[in-house]
């Protein structure tokens, strides 16, 4: 139900902003809701927000154009209602709800949360390029103007010194984190404190008794959730899409007042009790806690890596230049990354090779139900003690833009919520662990699994994980029916023996060195890498995922021959499944070297890798007897 009033000037608004934002890094000048706490931002100013669509609410009808009347003078004024929540009028005016001039329009509300599992370095770098860091007068204006005495009580202690020298304080933090480079907590710390403080304040306020569940997919997430109001093309957005929106920030306190008023009178007016109290709370939470953004421009992001140009498909000279520049120095970067990961995997270079392939894998197409391009790796033989997986995850976190570490245990499987489900009383999609954005790395740690019994919830969770890995989809629970949401999540499973979850390829880890102190070893590994090199790794992994790939007829023939030959020798050991795997390995192997077509050499190398991997598995099997 798209109904865009066809007045040209409305189109011009979006055009204007689009043009303006294209100009030399203009996007960096817009304050981002991801970095700057809401109470530092000026209401009704332009902000940006990088987020994932968590839920879609029902479309709402609003007054696109409305008329106010001054009861004394009878003067009528037309107002424009787009990009705002509240139909405003002067103190002496009243809104004429029956005016024939009123135009009703439609808009869609998305409930957006910050990208789940977003790595600290993504936040950090986008913050560094953001307006708070680029110390311009404009950027400094936004906090100070929004800082009004009435808000002073909100976060009293923190604000005390922060507000005296807000930018100075930030720069101090910035400097510190820049020097330490790898320090994850660095500059994010003060912002977190602030959001926490403001959230905490609301908990105390009598207005909303229990704390509002902001519905983040992952536990322990921080950041503002946002009601994003979209005015056009909302059909093109899907749940779990990652968006960058530019729009008008609306934190009008009236929104909250209207709310509480309604709740009081709900017993009186039958019209109001239509929505349950929960629904009210969820759909119109206090604006200070869940701000509204009225979108002027929204774009889907292919990736959230701030080191890359936002859109790579565009035929812009700048992006092309960037890509070709990077491609020229690809092989040293790859070699360095391989070395880095080999160290991280305790000297196992084969496992490191597979880890690279895994990290650049992505579902590039679906053939009816079959997702193509998923490459789930099961890293078996992980040492149980020494918290190896914990540290391995820390390293991966430093490389990929979004990730989550799932520690599998009977407890966590039975008690956490994996599958998002619809809560019909509150009329919203309650998020679950598996509601993740595309290309999120999910590291499942099976080494901590103990013997025990899964209950119903646990069985469902394990099944969901299995489905996610095999079909790259999650069946969201809508109580009366299930709905399939395709996803694209890189799953890495670390286990002692073979994982109980399905996987595309099992690599048995053969540690060459056993460091006496795992923690020391791993952190020294990280500090040894220069920040600039680390950034190259990050670019490498994000960029290669987006490349196209093809196989020439000639190589197809060769592969065919090879397959037939292999089958002839030993039909039992080489199945169609194995060919699938080899082709996958070949694909990512070529891409990891920056080649977009398969060459014979790569194919042979892929075969070799597979053979090595299999030999290891066999060896392992014979050692462990019947372990499979």
């Amino acid at each position, binding site marked *: 139900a798209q109904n865009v009033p066809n007045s040209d000037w409305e189109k011009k608004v979006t055009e204007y902003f689009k043009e303006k934002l294209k100009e030399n890094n203009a996007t960096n000048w817009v304050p981002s809701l991801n970095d700057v706490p809401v109470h530092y931002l000026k209401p009704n100013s332009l902000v940006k927000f990088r987020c994932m669509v968590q839920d879609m609410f029902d479309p709402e*009808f609003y007054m696109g154009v409305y008329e106010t009347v001054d009861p004394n003078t009878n003067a009528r004024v037309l107002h424009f209602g787009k990009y705002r929540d*509240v139909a405003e009028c002067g103190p002496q005016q009243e809104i004429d709800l029956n005016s024939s001039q009123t135009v*009703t329009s439609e808009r869609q509300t998305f409930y957006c949360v910050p990208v789940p599992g977003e790595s600290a370095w993504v936040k950090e770098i986008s913050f560094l390029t953001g307006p708070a860091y680029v110390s311009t007068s404009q950027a400094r204006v936004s906090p100070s103007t929004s800082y009004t005495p009435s808000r002073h009580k909100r976060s009293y202690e923190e604000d005390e010194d922060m507000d005296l020298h807000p930018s100075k304080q930030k720069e101090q933090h910035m400097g510190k984190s820049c020097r330490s480079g790898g320090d994850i907590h660095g500059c994010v710390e003060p912002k977190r404190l602030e959001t926490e403080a403001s959230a905490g304040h609301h908990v105390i306020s009598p207005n909303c008794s229990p704390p509002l569940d902001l519905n983040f997919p992952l536990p322990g997430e921080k950041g503002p959730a946002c009601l994003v109001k979209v005015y056009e093309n909302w059909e093109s957005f899907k749940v779990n899409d990652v968006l960058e929106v530019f729009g008008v920030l609306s934190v009008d306190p*009236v929104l909250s007042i209207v709310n509480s008023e309604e709740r009081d009178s709900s017993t009186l*007016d*039958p019209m109001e009790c*239509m929505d349950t109290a929960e629904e009210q709370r969820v759909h119109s939470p206090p604006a200070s806690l869940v701000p509204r953004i009225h979108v002027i421009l929204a774009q889907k992001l292919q990736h959230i890596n701030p080191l890359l140009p936002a859109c790579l498909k565009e035929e812009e000279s700048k992006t092309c230049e960037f890509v070709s520049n990077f491609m020229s120095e690809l092989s040293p970067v790859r070699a360095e990354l391989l070395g880095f990961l080999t160290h991280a995997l305790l000297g196992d270079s084969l496992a490191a090779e597979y880890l690279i392939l895994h990290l650049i894998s992505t579902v590039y197409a679906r*053939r*009816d139900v079959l997702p193509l391009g998923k490459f789930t790796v099961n890293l078996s033989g992980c040492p149980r003690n020494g918290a190896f997986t914990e540290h391995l995850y820390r390293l991966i976190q430093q490389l990929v833009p979004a990730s989550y570490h799932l520690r599998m245990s009977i407890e966590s499987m039975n008690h956490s919520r994996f599958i998002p489900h619809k809560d019909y009383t509150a009329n919203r999609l309650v998020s679950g662990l598996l509601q993740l954005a595309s290309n999120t790395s999910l590291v499942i740690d099976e080494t901590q699994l103990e013997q025990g019994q899964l209950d119903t919830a646990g069985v469902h969770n394990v099944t969901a994980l299995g489905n996610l890995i095999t079909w790259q989809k999650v069946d969201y629970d809508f109580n009366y029916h299930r709905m399939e949401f395709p996803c694209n999540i890189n799953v890495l499973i670390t286990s002692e023996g073979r994982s109980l979850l399905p996987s595309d390829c099992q690599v048995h880890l053969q540690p060459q060195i056993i460091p006496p102190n795992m923690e020391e070893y791993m952190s020294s590994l990280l500090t040894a890498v220069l920040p600039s090199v680390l950034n190259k790794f990050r670019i490498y992994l994000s960029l290669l995922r987006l490349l196209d790939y093809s196989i020439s007829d000639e190589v197809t023939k060769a592969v065919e021959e090879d397959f037939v030959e292999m089958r002839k020798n030993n039909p039992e050991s080489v199945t169609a499944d194995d060919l699938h795997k080899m*082709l996958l390995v070949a694909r990512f192997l070529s891409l990891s070297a920056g080649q977009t077509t398969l060459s014979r050499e790569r194919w042979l190398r892929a075969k070799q890798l597979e053979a090595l991997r299999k030999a290891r598995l066999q060896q392992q099997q014979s050692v462990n007897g019947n372990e499979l």
Partner: protein
Amino acid sequence: MSSPASTPSRRRGKRGRGSSNPSTPQDARSPPSQKRRTDDSTSTGDLQPMPTSPPADVQSPGAADALFSSPPQFRHSAIPLDFDISSPLTYGTPSSRVEGTPRSGVRGTPVRQRPDLGSVRKARQVDLHSDGLAEDIVATEQSLGQKLVIWGTDVNVASCKEKFQRFLHRFIDPLDKEDEDIGLDLNEPRYMQRLQEINMVGEPFLNVNCDHLRSFDENLYRQLICYPQEVIPTFDMAANEIFFDRYPDSILEHQIQVRPYNALKTRNMRNLNPEDIDQLITISGMVIRSSQLIPEMQEAFFRCQVCAFTTRVEIDRGRIAEPSVCKNCNTTHSMALIHNRSMFSDKQMIKLQESPEDMPAGQTPHTVALFAHNDLVDKVQPGDRVNVTGIYRAVPIRVNPRVSSVNSVYKTHIDVIHYRKTDSKRLHCVDEETEQKRFTEERVEMLKELSKKADIYDRLALALAPSIYEHEDIKKGILLQLFGGSRKDFTHTGRGNFRAEINILLCGDPGTSKSQLLQYVYNLVPRGQYTSGKGSSAVGLTAYVMKDPETRQLVLQTGALVLSDNGICCIDEFDKMNESTRSVLHEVMEQQTLSIAKAGIICQLNARASILAAANPIESQWNPKKTTIENIQLPHTLLSRFDLIFLMLDPRDEAYDRRLARHLVSLYYQTEEKMEEEYMDMAVLRDYIAYARSYVNPRLGEEASQALIEAYVDMRKIGSGRGMVSAYPRQLESLIRLAEAHAKVRFSEKVETIDVEEAKRLHREALKQSATDPRTGIVDISILTTGMSATARKRKEELAQALRKLIQSKGKTPSLKYQQLLDDLRAQSDTAITKEMFEEALRALADEDFLTVTGKTVRLL
């Protein structure tokens, strides 16, 4: 809407205008209502509807003239539009219900308010001859005297009524058959028969199919859609006039209410937009929540504590204007509300969510609020799929008196006029296919065009799961399963329903994309269920009783098989299913029902599901030296219920490998766009199947019957030569189903010889794969029907006899050692005898009461 005869008194009661009628008790109420009316005209700012279509009152033409000659001030006061969905003022005074004994005829039948239509009290008619407002109005009727239209619309009450009466009198559509039409003569005016039905049954609701109205009078239909609030009361009026004209002695609970349904604007919830506000719409969806019944006060009853003087006050916008002074004794604050003499009407709030089928992929479902009134309360429960016809409303969120700004968002809901359950059909009507998907004409043309192609069967088979390589016969089998046979009813001959669904079992080596095929089918069919044998229990498949956490009552929760009624239930890892779970499949696969007796709930549910199962061989790799039964270890009773059993084996063939490799390689570099083309095909395939399933119902032709008989006789003959039976009636039934399904593929209403030929071929192919005795290489159906090939059975008997001889040769020993006996038998026999074979022989002898086995000793009897 009241009839004209009752209108004047209603108006007077409500507006306090016109000549007084001393005989009714309404007189006493005149002053307060008059006062309120003037209130209304001044207090305009509160709750106002969208101005798209100003609500209007319908007046009978006679009364209207009188009104318009009276105070001109009325015209001004009418413009502010009050919005109150529960206004009682619309339909006469409620007191008309209380007053007088029920008499017959239009005059006596009380009028029931229609809160579903909302308040229309403020509307008025506009004479087009009068100046001023004339330009707002589009006159549709040009003849003189018919220019009176309701303000803001182009509806002329008189002509509208007349047209609708003509419609009721004349509408005949012999072709259009609906399932409620039982007992209707389609060649007689349909709605006159309906009125007759109302007279007999006494349910004063007339359901009108908007589609009929549209074919009868396009303009009237348009008016109904655009101005339902004004037109439906007119329809009521018209229907009542006809009804009481015909059946003057009829006594109804209240006057007939017309309920239109199937407004062609039937749409997906997603398509609702601001233009639909205040229009009649039909949307489909699923009920997800319904509120408790809300008694809504329509009229408050007050009594003076001092002099016992009583008065009634109508509810205005949810507020009661409590009289502060008694009119009789002039005491202030003496009026008290008497609850049980006040009038209430029922109201319910319902949340409707769009059906999962309508939802675009990757988005969450939308919901919309419904308000049901009076009789429609509690007509639907959460989980029901319904088509709702109603008026779409948008109401501004209440103005906060303290803040001048207003939340600019409207609240929307639908006032329900008519419900139609989409799945009620499924439960009651056996031979009707469920969800008759509506196809556009072009689509039907396209599908028919497609069906005429000679190679349509192969084409469709190719379009099925293109990512799975080859296995064409299996795909063909699944294709026929998707189409299914024709449903036959032999209840009168005592056999009940014949199964029309085709069941297929796939067995074979792991990694031969069986699961993928299952997933594909599951994604293709609208009512598919996917379960895994390992993960499902008997209750998960059938139904289970659980305590509803909210109501604390026992409720029946249906499982996968019931949910896939009329669809396909895909069961992966069939062999891993435990014994008790599998046993429930016996009933489902032949009788197509599920009987449940649990926790005091005894019932039989329909489970007309086709079953597509996949099983892995016991030894992880298929052993070609063993029979199907031995390989998958499933009971033959279950196996014989599968129409087709396919083996998906890994062919050891160079040419095949080559083709497979090429196919797989292409998967790894094709781009998204190339894949898109195949997705298109999936939509076509889905529609093709849906169309064939609901519209094509082939019957056996004479030639085809002969061919089937021959085929069956042939099959029996093959076996009889070797003294064994190679075909049972079950196989014949399978053949018929397959032939019918093949005819459906061709969109043919008649099963012909080619269909039988293909059915035979496919059946033979499947048999060749699954029922070949690996020892003899002969196709032997008894492997599937008795679990053993005839030769194996023979061998077993021989062994038993040998054992008996051995024991008898030992002379009169009462008991023998088990191990000793086995060793003796082994020594005697020239073939290797396994322990299992020995035990089987022992068991056979025990069955003959020759011996008993207790522990490790064998006793003779």
